């Protein structure tokens, strides 16, 4: 189901298929829809951020997201990644769904000390899990913090590709597409194309790659 939803989002970001509606990709009546939205995070709403998307999100989309936010709030002991991904979904709801700020929860405070403190392999792993936040305008403070570790994220990209961990590699590549100052010798565009050839069959990998291209013009 998550793969299908990710494929639906990727299709919409490519500008293909019917105009995107989250409520058609994930029906509110489906018991698993809230969990799928929670896993996709902000990416569930990514097509609404794309330039070529004309139809605005509707009330049914709002219902699907509200159900997810209500069902899976991060607990007191939630990991930083879990809080950030929830926060990303809240931020995207504010940005892309109808209804004023009062209709959505306030974005929760999310710890960011790890961005500075993590050794680069762990930093890269966490950042890749938060690749859905690499959307225009989302979480600018996190993006700014990651900008100070661009070289380390690039090292994580190299490590992930060499390990053939395409999901981590694609997520990091998507962040690097958003961030300034990526080392030219990384070969990011060729790297993203390479990941597409090797691991693009995975819908979540494909989604990161198409987001990097759609929003930041990087990749094949």
């Amino acid at each position, binding site marked *: 189901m998550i793969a299908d939803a990710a494929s639906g989002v990727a299709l919409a970001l490519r500008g293909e298929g019917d105009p995107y509606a989250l409520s058609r990709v994930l029906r509110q009546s489906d018991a698993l829809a809230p969990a799928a939205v929670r896993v996709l995070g902000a990416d569930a709403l990514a097509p609404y951020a794309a330039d070529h998307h004309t139809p605005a999100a509707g009330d049914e989309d709002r219902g699907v997201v509200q159900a997810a936010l209500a069902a899976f709030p991060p607990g007191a002991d939630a990991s930083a990644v879990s809080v950030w991904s929830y926060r990303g979904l809240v931020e995207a709801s504010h940005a892309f769904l109808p209804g004023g700020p009062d209709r959505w929860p306030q974005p929760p405070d999310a710890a960011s000390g790890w961005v*500075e*403190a*993590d*050794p*680069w*392999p762990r930093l890269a792993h966490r950042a890749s899990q938060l690749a859905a936040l690499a959307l225009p305008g989302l979480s600018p403070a996190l993006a700014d913090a990651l900008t*100070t*570790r*661009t*070289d*380390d994220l*690039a*090292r*994580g*990209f*190299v*490590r992930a*590709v*060499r*390990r053939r961990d395409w999901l981590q*590699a694609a997520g990091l590549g998507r962040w690097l597409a958003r961030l300034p*100052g990526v*080392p*030219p*010798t*990384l*070969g990011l565009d*060729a*790297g993203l194309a*390479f990941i597409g050839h090797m691991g693009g069959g995975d819908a979540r990998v494909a989604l990161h790659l198409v987001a990097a291209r759609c929003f930041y013009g990087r990749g094949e």
Partner: protein
Amino acid sequence: MSGPPSAAADTALLDSVATGALSWLGAYRDRFRLPADVTTDADPNLTLKPLGELAELARLIQELHPRADVREAAAELFAFAWEQFGRGALHAELMRNEPQAVYPVELYGVFARAGLRHPAADALLTTVTGLRRWRVAGGDHTRTLSVLNAERRIGVPLHADPGAVFALTGLGLRAEPWLLDLRAAYGLTHDVFHLTDWGRARHRMAAPFAAYLRLWLPCWLEGELERELWDLVGELLAVAACLPRPWYPADVWRRLAAAQRPDGGVPERSDPADGPYRDDPFLTCYHSTLVTAFAATLARVGTDTTPDDSTGPARATAPGRESEAAP
């Protein structure tokens, strides 16, 4: 592995690693002895190649290591290798047998650099390296760099422009760092060794290439540590020490030191069952043990010339940014 800070080198650890490795090499010295059929039936990968590596790296350690006892142990190994080559007579015989081959010249260059010559080999060299045939590439660009380095050592004209050849190597092209497989990794380390004459001439490495290596070495090392490929870990550590501003990754050195066995040998990989020579401690260890002694020597020399630039993980990304200014 933590971030890529460059700590002050741990000279006690480096010396312990180097003396352990040299002790192992001394104990196994007779295994480097050439068999009677070395020029006919013997497999050169099991005879000339190990002895040539012993000569190359022992000589470097003899020249550069700050400790007299280490230099002395290395000097004995180098002298042993020269004797095994019949003080150059074997080089001459190999050139007569295979006048088109580059390896006898490369092997001779190791000794010529140290001032050890043989009249017959010198006479043959003039002819062999003067042939048009000599200018036909015998291998990839990395190997051509090796031949050029041998020519420089021996003092015969260079058969190609080293700059143009270097530009076509993995390092010269600053190839995509994520596509570094085993073969490319060994190519890259040897691009560095030939360019810098095995760490003696670190200044020959221009800034863009040093920045490229400093940026990507941490993630390459991390990968080889995960696979516990100790010979490649050692080669990459040697590369780190060949940088104009050497980098000392303390945690990687501790891991390599921990992989060294009590007798001083360093296995190519932790699980010898993975390797082709699992029943033979010499064949599973000689290369990585030599490389470890070599890397420990270069790292030790680097500490004598480099101030402590201990930094935190976030700060340590700074050298990578140099590459953005690179052409």
